[in-house]
């Protein structure tokens, strides 16, 4: 009897993909996708380029519709969710896009305010205050008036991150947050992911094909291979794996990091 009380509570499931299939015409992406994400963890999804990592994130906030199967977030089915409820889902799950996807025509401040305005987050003064706060959090205070075209690749990512966290999401999706950045910016972004994790206590899914980033920020790894995500484990397990493709990926990924070009 006393045994049962000391057993840790099973981790709470926040997001679950179940038998999700997705194809673009003849191009089969998932056959099928199964994945569970727990509250508060940082899950890293690794896998080759063009294999469907971004597609997975986009299906989760229904920027893309799954062909079949079930995707749940906070216990609610996403694939059949009515339009009106999607707004609430997208308030709780924020995404940092690969190229940051800042709106070129708006200033940094207007970009960060965009979700606040759409979600009717508060008064104009509160929004200005919030913009200041999140810019501080990503280490770029005082650049409210700049346009995205005036920012370097690393700065864009950080503003994109500021925009993503502005509405205080429960889950943050990072789509290749460090791809194309120089080593200093890679370290900076990884540090930010870790710090936000601790400070905001969010659940994160980080998609990457950069093994160093993966090992820096992650609790758990999921490996996308052959249209499935059958392998999940800790970083120690990933390093010690005898699953051939993953081993190749782990070692290859570390090797190619230095060879990869930089952007800014």
């Amino acid at each position, binding site marked *: 009897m006393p045994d049962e009380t000391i057993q840790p509570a099973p981790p709470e499931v926040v997001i679950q993909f179940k038998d999700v299939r997705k194809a673009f015409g003849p191009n089969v992406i998932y056959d099928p996708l199964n994945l569970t994400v727990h509250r508060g963890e940082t899950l890293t999804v690794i896998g080759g380029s063009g294999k469907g990592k971004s597609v997975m994130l*986009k299906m989760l*906030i229904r*920027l893309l519709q799954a062909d079949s199967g079930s995707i749940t977030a906070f216990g609610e089915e996403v694939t059949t969710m009515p339009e009106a409820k999607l*707004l609430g889902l*997208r*308030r709780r799950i*924020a*995404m940092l*896009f*690969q*190229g940051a*996807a*800042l*709106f*070129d025509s708006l200033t940094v401040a207007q970009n960060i305010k*965009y*979700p606040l305005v*759409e*979600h009717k987050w508060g008064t104009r003064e509160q929004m200005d205050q919030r913009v200041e706060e999140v810019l501080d959090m990503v280490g770029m205070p005082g650049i409210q008036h700049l346009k995205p075209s005036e920012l370097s690749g690393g700065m864009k990512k950080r503003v994109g991150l500021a*925009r993503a966290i502005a*509405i205080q999401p429960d889950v943050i999706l990072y789509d290749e947050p460090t791809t194309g950045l120089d080593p200093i910016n890679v370290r900076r972004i990884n540090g930010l992911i870790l710090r936000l994790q601790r400070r905001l206590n969010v659940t994160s899914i980080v998609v990457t094909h950069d093994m160093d980033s993966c090992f820096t920020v992650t609790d758990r790894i999921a490996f996308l291979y052959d249209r499935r995500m059958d392998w999940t484990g800790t970083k120690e397990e990933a390093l010690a794996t005898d699953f051939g493709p993953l081993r190749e990926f782990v070692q290859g990924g570390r090797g190619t990091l230095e060879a990869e070009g930089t952007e800014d």
Partner: protein
Amino acid sequence: MSAAIKLLGHIGAVTRLSGRTFRVVFSRKFVDRSLLSAQMDHAGIGSWSIAVLTALFTGAVMAIQFADGLEPYGASLYTGKMVSLGIVRELGPTLTAVLVGGRVGAGFTAEIGSMNVTEQVDAISALGADPIEKLVAPRVMACIIMLPLLTLLADFVGCFGAMLVVMTDVGVTATFFIEQVLDTLVIADLLHGLAKATFFGYFIAIVGCYVGLNTRGGTEGVGRSTTDTVVAISITVLVSNFLLTKLFLSF
């Protein structure tokens, strides 16, 4: 065969996009006047010079041709009648739509297409807004409003160009020409032309936005899409012009 199927697929998709757009336009949600006025500025004010130049020279050249062609029958004096009918019913709306449509539609595609390949369109949705409301609806509304206005302008300028030619070549007075024109044209002629222009405006915007929203493949893809749009809009305007003319004249 497969091209026909593809075309039908596009028509179906454009119809769905139109449905979603008009739902936004007719709902209370569509209140963003600043987006609309920016697009009206771009589509309309930015295009008036093209419309004017096209109309002026087309009107003038038609007048030269008709004056010459009617001469053997001693009917050069009626040039104004022929030319004004041709301009107001056909050339005003159609030429304006093809030329302005190429410019404006290609612009929409390039703009929305680059937003799409850089995931800005996805970002609009992800941040809690609707790309149809933010991108498509204002452009469609702007074109539906601006194309008839530009056509009206083109009608006037085209007739003016014709008048200059007839006055010098045939030697009639401005008053004679204007009286002749007013005598010939009935209000229905003008309305037909403007009604067509409204449809053309809608086609231009919806095609431009549709191709933009379906652009993939980086900057190269944007370039390809932009060319596609110019071709698609020209063909849509010319083919729909035939159908609309048939339809309107059957009343």
